[in-house]
C-alpha cells in the first residue's frame, strides 16, 4: 500500500472511529455489529439495514453500525473493515464487492476475535465463518410453481420464459421446477414449453407472444428473470390477455409494481432484503456472544426467521423467496 493510500485510509478510519465513538457511548458492554454493504445509497441495502435495526432492537444490547463505500469497490470495503478492526467491533457482516480481495483483511479481523459473516454476495470460505444466501435453488423453484398454482387454482397449462439457454442460475431453477411439477401436489399443472428471451426485451416479448400463439390454452408464464417477467407482462397487456394469462416469477417490486396493478401479474417473488439484513445481524449476534458456533452441520437460531443450517460448504440459506402482490408491492417498490 502506498503512503498516499495509507494516509487517506487513516483519515477515513479516524472519521469512522469518531462517528462510532459518538454512537458507541450508549453502553460499553453492548455487542457492536457492523454491517458493511456493497455501496451506500442502494435501496436494496437500505432495506437490509432496516432489517438489521429490527434485529438489533429485538436483541436489545446491540449497537448496529451501518457502513459501506460510496461506490461499490473492494478497495473501499477494505479501508472500512480496517477501521472497524481498529475500533474493535464484535462482529462484521459483509456483502462483498469481490469474494477474494476481502479475504486478507477479514482474516485479520477474525484473528483479532471478530466474528465475520458474509451475506448476499459472499466472501471466499477462507475469509468468513459462513455465508448467508437469501435462498436456495429448490426453494426458489418450488415457490414459483406454488405461485402459479395458487393463481390458477391448481390446474392449467403453464410455460417458462427464461433468460439465455445457458444461464446457470435459471437452468438450475427450471430443473427444480420440473421436479416439483412431477409431484402429485401439482399434477393439475402442465408445463407445455420452456423458451428463452435472452434477457432482451424485444426477444422476450416475441417469445411470450409466440407462447400465446402456440398454446391457446396457456394460463400462466413463469419468468425467473427480471427482463423476461416485465416483457411477458407487457405482452399480456398488449395482446388483451389480462385475466386469461398470468405472469409470475422473479422480479423486483420497483420493476413489477406497474404490471401488478395492470392485472397481468398476480404474484411474484424475490428474496426480501429486510429479512436478509435481520438474519445476518441476528446470526452475527448469536456467534459473537458464543451462543452458537456456526460450524458446518450446526444450526443458528435467527429470531422470527426461525433458524438457519450451515451446510458443509459453510453456506446457509435463509428462507424461500418472499411473495409480493397488490397488497404489499407499493410499499416495497419504494425500497428496491
Amino acid at each position, binding site marked *: 500500500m502506498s503512503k498516499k493510500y495509507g494516509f487517506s485510509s487513516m483519515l477515513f478510519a479516524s472519521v469512522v472511529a469518531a462517528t462510532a465513538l459518538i454512537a458507541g457511548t450508549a453502553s460499553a458492554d453492548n455487542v457492536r455489529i457492523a454491517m458493511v454493504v456493497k455501496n451506500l445509497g442502494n435501496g436494496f441495502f437500505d432495506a437490509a439495514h432496516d432489517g438489521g435495526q429490527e434485529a438489533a432492537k429485538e436483541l436489545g444490547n446491540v449497537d448496529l453500525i451501518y457502513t459501506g463505500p460510496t461506490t461499490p469497490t473492494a478497495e473501499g470495503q477494505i479501508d472500512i473493515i480496517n477501521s472497524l478492526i481498529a475500533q474493535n467491533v464484535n462482529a462484521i457482516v459483509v456483502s462483498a464487492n469481490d469474494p477474494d480481495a476481502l479475504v486478507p483483511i477479514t482474516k485479520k479481523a477474525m484473528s483479532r476475535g471478530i466474528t465475520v459473516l458474509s451475506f448476499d454476495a459472499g466472501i471466499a470460505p477462507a475469509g468468513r465463518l459462513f455465508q448467508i444466501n437469501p435462498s436456495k435453488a429448490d426453494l426458489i423453484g418450488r415457490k414459483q410453481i406454488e405461485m402459479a398454482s395458487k393463481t390458477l387454482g391448481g390446474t392449467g397449462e403453464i410455460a417458462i420464459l427464461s433468460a439465455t*439457454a445457458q444461464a446457470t442460475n435459471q437452468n438450475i431453477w427450471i430443473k427444480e421446477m420440473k421436479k416439483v411439477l412431477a409431484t402429485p401436489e401439482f399434477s393439475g399443472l402442465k408445463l407445455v414449453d420452456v*423458451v*428463452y428471451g435472452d*434477457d*432482451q*426485451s*424485444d*426477444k422476450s*416479448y*416475441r*417469445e411470450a*407472444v*409466440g*407462447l400465446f*400463439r*402456440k398454446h*391457446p390454452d396457456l394460463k400462466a408464464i413463469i419468468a425467473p428473470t427480471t*427482463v423476461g417477467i*416485465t*416483457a411477458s407482462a*407487457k405482452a399480456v397487456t*398488449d*395482446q388483451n390477455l389480462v385475466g386469461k394469462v398470468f405472469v409470475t416469477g422473479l422480479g423486483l417490486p*420497483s*420493476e*413489477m*409494481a*406497474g*404490471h401488478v*396493478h*395492470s392485472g397481468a401479474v398476480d404474484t411474484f417473488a424475490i428474496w426480501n432484503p429486510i429479512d436478509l439484513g435481520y438474519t445476518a445481524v441476528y446470526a452475527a449476534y448469536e456467534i459473537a456472544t458464543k451462543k452458537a458456533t456456526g460450524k458446518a452441520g450446526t444450526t443458528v437460531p435467527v429470531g422470527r426467521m426461525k433458524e438457519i443450517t450451515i451446510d458443509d460448504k459453510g453456506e446457509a440459506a435463509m428462507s424461500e423467496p418472499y411473495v409480493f402482490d397488490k397488497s404489499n408491492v407499493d410499499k416495497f*417498490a419504494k425500497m428496491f
Partner: protein
Amino acid sequence: MRRLLQRRENQLAAIIILVVGLITLRAPVFLSMGSIDTIMTDGAILTMMALVQMLAILTRGIDLSVSANMALTGMVVALLSKDHPEMAVTATIVLALGLGLLLGAINGVMIAYVGIPPIVVTLGTMSIYRGLVFQVSGGAWVNAQQMGSAFIAFPTTRLLGLTAIVWIAAVMVAAIYLFLNHVRKGRELYALGGNPTAARYVGINNTHNQMLVYSLIGLVSGLCGYLWVARYAVAYTEIALGFELQTVAACVIGGVSMAGGRGTVLGCVLGSVFLVIIFNALPIINVSPFWQLAISGAVILAAVVLNSRSERSKGKLILKSAQLAAVRGTA
C-alpha cells in the same frame, strides 16, 4: 416472367411468400389477423432503422452506434417522463428527435469534417453512448409505473386499425423513398457510394452528404429510442444491445451492397420484413433455442452469397447504376 424474377426485390418477395407459406403449414395461427398485426408492430422499428442504416451503407459507410443512440435517447426521455409524467407526447418526440440528431451529428462531424472512417468513429461512439446510459441512469431501471401513461400508450395507439408505430414507419418509408429517388441530395448518395472519385469530379460534396447522412441516422435513432422504451414499457442499460447488427443484416438481406452505391428502399423494407418474420416464426414453430441463432446467421450468410454473385456480373460503373436506378424509378 423471367425478367420479373431477375430483380432482387422480386426474388426476395417470392422467398418471403414461400417462407410464410411453410410456417403457416406448420402453425396456421401465424397468418391470423392478430399475428400479422403483432408482426407489423414488431417490425416497424427495425424497418425504420434499417432504412437509415442503408443511407450510411450507400455512401460506403456504416453506423454501429445506432442502438447505443437509441438506448441513450430512450433512457433520457424515460427519465424525463419519470420526473414529469404529465409531459406531452409531442414534447417527448421533439426531445427524442433533438437528442438523437445531436448524437448523430457528433458522428457526422467526426466522419465528414475530421475524416475518420465511419466504422471507427461509430465503434467509438457506440461505447461512449452506451456508457452514458449507465451514467445518466446510475444503472437503475425506469419502470412501467414510473413513466407517464400517455408516454407508454403512444406507440400502440390505433389509427384506422393500425398502431401509431406502424404509421410512423410507413411515413418514413415513403419519405426516404422520395428522398432517394426524387431529391437531388438522395441521388448524390448513390453516386458517392458508386464511385467517390468520379462523384467529386462532377462536383458532389462528400462532406455535406456524410454530415447529412449521419445526422439523419441520429434523428431517426432518437425517435426509435423513445418508441422502443415506450413499447416495452421499461428502460434499462442494455436496451437494444446488438440491434445495430440486425439493421445491417436487414440491409444485406434486402440487397444493399456493403461496397456502397447500390440498394433500394423496397429491398431494405423486404429485408426487414424477412428478418422480423423469421424472428417471430422461430418461437412458434418449435425450433430449439440452440438452433435459432444459427438459423438467423445462416439466412444472412445466404443473402450475402446471393448478393455477391449478382454484383460480380455487373461491375460498379456509376453512370450505369445511376441509369439503372433511373429506369427503376420510372418503371
